[in-house]
């Protein structure tokens, strides 16, 4: 297979390039149904790359830790699960930056103390007493905000959707390098399978979430509510960046498809959707119901 060959996964739609690696399985879904196809000339070249910082052995170690640290409602097989198909893959993502502007409005709560007089009956006599109560005065506030959105990373892969990438972010972007073929030699790289426009829309969405948190921290007062804002983005820029991910298949049940575990190839942060054990959940629900029923019966039984 030449370095310029691409393979397309028939199951999940990822398009992959194998730089000196020999594999015929899709790293995302472990499907063997990958087809060779010529490299598409119209695809954008990566601008940047973040290098792997976690070795395969270290990724396996983290995967084992992940299987051992699942909650009680997780499928019992996870503890004894075998880890198959450890693949390091450079995932295509867009690194988005822009200048954001927002107009916001909120209700700001300013607390104050008031002395209240109230009547209390002591030994059959009514006495007037006072107490200090805290009240909140609500004032509306409107304002403008402007700032940079600097490090928004969104997946450009259909194989690994943005929500899964977000779960293993952040990447240390101070270690960003300009892309060169030499840096990905020996690794699998995936070609972007999402349109730039869709990725920019995802990035704006992430930027908006960040903006919401920024404005939330900006608000004065003892409390605030009803924070609303309209925003727009200018001078937008998106660069294609390859980010390192270890993708592992966790086989917990011979009958079922494996769980996919994603590990940030730079920081080692792991994420996977552990299968739940319905049996364990059902037992827990039944036990809780039994305890409540028992308590009710006990309460009724008293004189």
């Amino acid at each position, binding site marked *: 297979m030449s370095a310029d060959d691409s393979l397309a996964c028939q199951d999940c739609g990822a398009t992959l390039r194998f730089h000196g690696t020999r594999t015929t399985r899709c790293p995302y879904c472990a499907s063997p149904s990958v087809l060779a196809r010529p490299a598409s000339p119209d695809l954008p070249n990566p601008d*940047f790359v973040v290098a*792997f910082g976690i070795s395969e052995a*270290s990724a396996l170690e983290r995967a084992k830790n992940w299987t051992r640290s699942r909650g009680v409602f997780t499928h019992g097989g996870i503890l004894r699960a075998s880890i198959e198909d450890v693949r390091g893959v450079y995932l295509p993502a867009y690194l988005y930056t822009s200048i954001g502007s927002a107009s916001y409005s909120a209700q700001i709560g300013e607390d104050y103390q008031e002395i209240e007089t109230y009547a209390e009956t002591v030994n059959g006599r009514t006495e007037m007493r006072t107490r200090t109560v805290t009240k909140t005065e609500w004032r509306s506030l*409107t304002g403008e905000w402007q700032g940079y959105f600097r490090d928004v990373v969104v997946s450009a892969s259909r194989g690994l959707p943005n929500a899964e990438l977000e779960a293993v972010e952040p990447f240390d972007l101070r270690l960003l390098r300009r892309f060169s073929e030499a840096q990905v030699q020996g690794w699998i790289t995936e070609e972007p399978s999402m349109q730039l426009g869709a990725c920019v829309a995802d990035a704006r969405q992430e930027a908006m979430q960040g903006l919401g948190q920024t404005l939330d921290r900006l608000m004065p007062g003892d409390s605030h509510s009803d924070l609303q804002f309209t925003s727009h983005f200018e001078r937008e820029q998106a660069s294609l960046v390859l980010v390192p991910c270890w993708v592992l298949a966790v086989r917990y049940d011979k009958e079922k498809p494996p769980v996919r575990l994603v590990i940030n190839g730079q920081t080692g942060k792991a994420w996977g959707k552990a299968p739940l054990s319905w049996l364990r959940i059902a037992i827990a629900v039944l036990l809780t119901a039994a305890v409540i029923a028992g308590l009710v019966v006990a309460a009724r039984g008293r004189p």
Partner: protein
Amino acid sequence: MSCARCASPLEVGDIRCAVCSLPAPAGSDAPARTTASILRCDECGAAVTYSAEHVGTRCPFCGAVAHLEQPADPIEAAEGFLPFRVSPAEAAAALRSWMDTLGFFRPSDLAAKATVDHIRPLFFAGWLFEADALVSWAADSDAGSGSSEWAPHSGQVPMRFDNVLVSASRGLSAQEVARLASGFQLTNIAPEPVGATEAMVERFDVQRSTARAIIANAVHGTAYARTESGQVPGRRVRNCHISVMVQALQSRRYGFPAYVLAYRYGDKAYRAVVHGQDAAIAFGDAPLSIRKILLVAFGVAALVLIIVAVLSNR
């Protein structure tokens, strides 16, 4: 070479703008060097070469979390030196006149009896930055308050920062540099120290990324102080929060002239600092006169006793 979006200068090796993160155009940065990344431990300071094969982000010496330093993260030298305008003799005289201003509770013979151990001229390390910024702020103040003594306010204001001094010195404390900051004249800056040949030159011992973080902090701190005191209406302010959008941030590394003096009074040593360009700025440690303090304390006690006695005799 400046950033196309925020006009801050790009330095050799930058692939993105340090202020707004806009990527630098390809080919503008120096050819990719193969220098290894350095893993620097936050706890023990050890620096090891980062390798994907056998290290994570833990320090091999002490196991603490280490941070990766940028490959192109040089420790940079001063770009220029501000000249001394105060001679050692004038600095010694400045020390004596400062002693005379210290007030009643210092020994009366401090200026006469103190002996100067040494007068050390030095260039301390610091940055001067200039920038434009748009500051978005929100705060509570007493202006326009109703039932509560606080009312919310917000605003957005452009700010210009000209030659704000940020300390890079380990030898002088932040407070000492803050007191020296006002008196410098930015003329006749020379590429090498001139005049005081025996002056020590303090090195910049932080890397570029750390320097940028310190300067970014200083920009934020300066903008915050200006907002709180000059933008929020009213006399009392609380919960002041700001967001700063910086543009055209430039910083320069300079050596700033100052004297560090050690003097003795009785059998104790004290330290003082005299500005290298303005002898009116002098400050330091000084002894207190125990005798005078005791005298005043006894005087006050006697006065209280007399008043009590007079009142109880009525």
